[in-house]
């Protein structure tokens, strides 16, 4: 018999599976569960984009395409970033089209880290950063953000954690799971500090199009930051294109030249059909995106209002499609809260602790669901809270 423990690398065996998955796996075995768990849009990809893909299937030879991505798409990405942020990236030398934002993050980490290099991971955050840092040989250093600051990152949060080995700061805003955003004013002190260091920024802006009330501001717009930032974005969230697997990374030429080798050997190129469709997304779908944003905003306001009414304090998230209510008043840990809510009222949510220790005491609620669905979920949660209240007395 082969001993797989000896076959598989120690490193990969030490990596924990995603904490989001756990509840989905249980929920999947139960009848009548309604979920508030997913991190992908409930809208279908806008028709113009699907039509573009159909035309490619009908008329074109489906080939690999260039390593860094189709030229028209890289041009469109370059123009989009310039229009939004006034920052220019060369389509030929400073952009790679990746398989989702996740690959872009992986490329950046593997391209930058040597064994023992430290990466500041701003938490709560999406589950992929720390494991990918470890796989790249780096050491994740957790930087908790606080509710007092509406889960924004402040210089004080991480200044003391910077060491000689600190190579990178991961900046995930608009944030999953908190919905927090960073404004120009919030980013300035951070940029001021970083300018005198050799620390790079990995700015994961995958939710940049989903903001409410104000336009997203990128750290690349600040003086001196373009040269020290690896900018990651993609099509999944804004254009409801999760299954198309398409993202991109832009960075100064020396960075792209190196990390494109990882992409070249490991991935070769991103899906050809998706790339052709994505050109359409960038050129003609602004109105579709803003329609989705309006709909998300209605749901967001509803959930924030309802959770506060139910006594689960919920700060006002200005981005992404999550609310992050505090469940400390119930006396339960976030894991226990989610488990009981699932088993007793059949509502699947994700414990805040899955996104880092600083998420303890909170739960992540996705509003990538219809209002009808959300209203049913809220009425179940209300019932659950009444039950908890009755237990106390």
């Amino acid at each position, binding site marked *: 018999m082969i001993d797989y423990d000896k076959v598989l690398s120690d490193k990969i065996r030490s990596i924990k599976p995603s904490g989001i998955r756990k509840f989905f796996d249980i929920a999947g075995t139960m009848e009548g569960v309604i*979920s508030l768990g997913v*991190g992908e849009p409930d809208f279908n990809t806008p028709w113009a984009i699907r039509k573009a893909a159909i035309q490619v299937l009908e008329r074109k030879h489906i080939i690999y395409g260039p390593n860094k991505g189709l030229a028209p798409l890289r041009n469109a990405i370059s123009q989009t970033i310039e229009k939004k942020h006034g920052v220019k990236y060369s389509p030929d030398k400073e952009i790679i089209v990746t398989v989702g934002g996740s690959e872009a993050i992986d490329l950046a980490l593997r391209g930058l880290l040597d064994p023992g290099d430290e990466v500041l991971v701003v938490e709560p955050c999406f589950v992929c950063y720390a494991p990918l840092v470890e796989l790249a040989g780096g050491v994740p250093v957790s930087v908790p953000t606080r509710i007092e600051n509406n889960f924004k990152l402040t210089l004080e949060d991480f200044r003391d954690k910077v060491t000689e080995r600190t190579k990178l700061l991961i900046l995930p805003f608009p944030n999953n799971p908190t919905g927090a955003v960073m404004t120009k004013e919030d980013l300035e002190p951070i940029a001021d500090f970083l300018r005198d260091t050799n620390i790079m920024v990995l700015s994961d802006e995958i939710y940049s199009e989903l903001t409410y009330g104000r336009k997203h501001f990128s750290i690349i717009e600040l003086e001196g930051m373009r040269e020290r930032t690896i900018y990651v974005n993609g099509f999944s969230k804004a254009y409801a294109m999760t299954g198309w697997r398409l993202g991109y990374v832009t960075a100064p030429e020396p960075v792209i030249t190196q990390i494109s080798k990882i992409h070249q050997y490991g991935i070769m190129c991103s899906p050809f059909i998706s790339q052709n469709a994505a050109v359409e997304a960038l050129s003609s779908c602004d109105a579709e995106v803003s329609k989705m944003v309006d709909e998300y905003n*209605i749901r967001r306001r509803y959930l924030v209002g309802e959770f506060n009414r139910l006594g689960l304090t919920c700060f006002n998230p200005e981005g992404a499609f999550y609310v992050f209510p505090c469940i400390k008043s119930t006396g339960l840990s976030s894991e226990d809260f989610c488990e009981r809510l699932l088993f007793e009222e059949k509502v699947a949510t994700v414990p805040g602790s899955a996104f880092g220790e600083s998420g303890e005491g909170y739960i992540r609620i996705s509003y990538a669901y219809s209002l009808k669905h959300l209203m049913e979920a809220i009425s179940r949660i209300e019932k659950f809270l009444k039950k908890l209240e009755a237990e106390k007395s």
Partner: protein
Amino acid sequence: MKDIVKILQQNARISNTALGEMLGISAEAAAAEIEKLEKSGVIKGYSVIVDDDLYDKSTVYATIELKVTPQRDCGFDDIAKTIMMYDEVESVSLMSSGAYDLAVEVKGDNLKDVAFFVSERLATIDGILSTSTHFILKKYKEKGIFIDSEEPDERGLG
């Protein structure tokens, strides 16, 4: 106003509190907005969408295409108004199609009732040149609401 109507079209029975939250206004302000829309005639009424398979299996719906002679001074309005007075008629619409002019949706207790209504009531109205009746076998979606079961949600990874 657009948002409020959009929300009510999905669920007209929503509470003023929830509606207010969605719009970012108070419950009282939401109630006042609705009243304004009702008074100005934007909102004509509220109805209920029923799955007849569960409620009353024998109910029959048909869409009838009518070719009509437009009348001097009032075009199609006069005939449309005559038709819409019947209780059996659920909706009357003027169409841009060249093949026919008015689309009429009729509801009846059974097939015979509907057939009788078309031949005896509709076809005999002055100015109606021809009728073409299409019985509805199954409704999948009505007013944006799924009648047939919704697609299962297969999301769950992110």
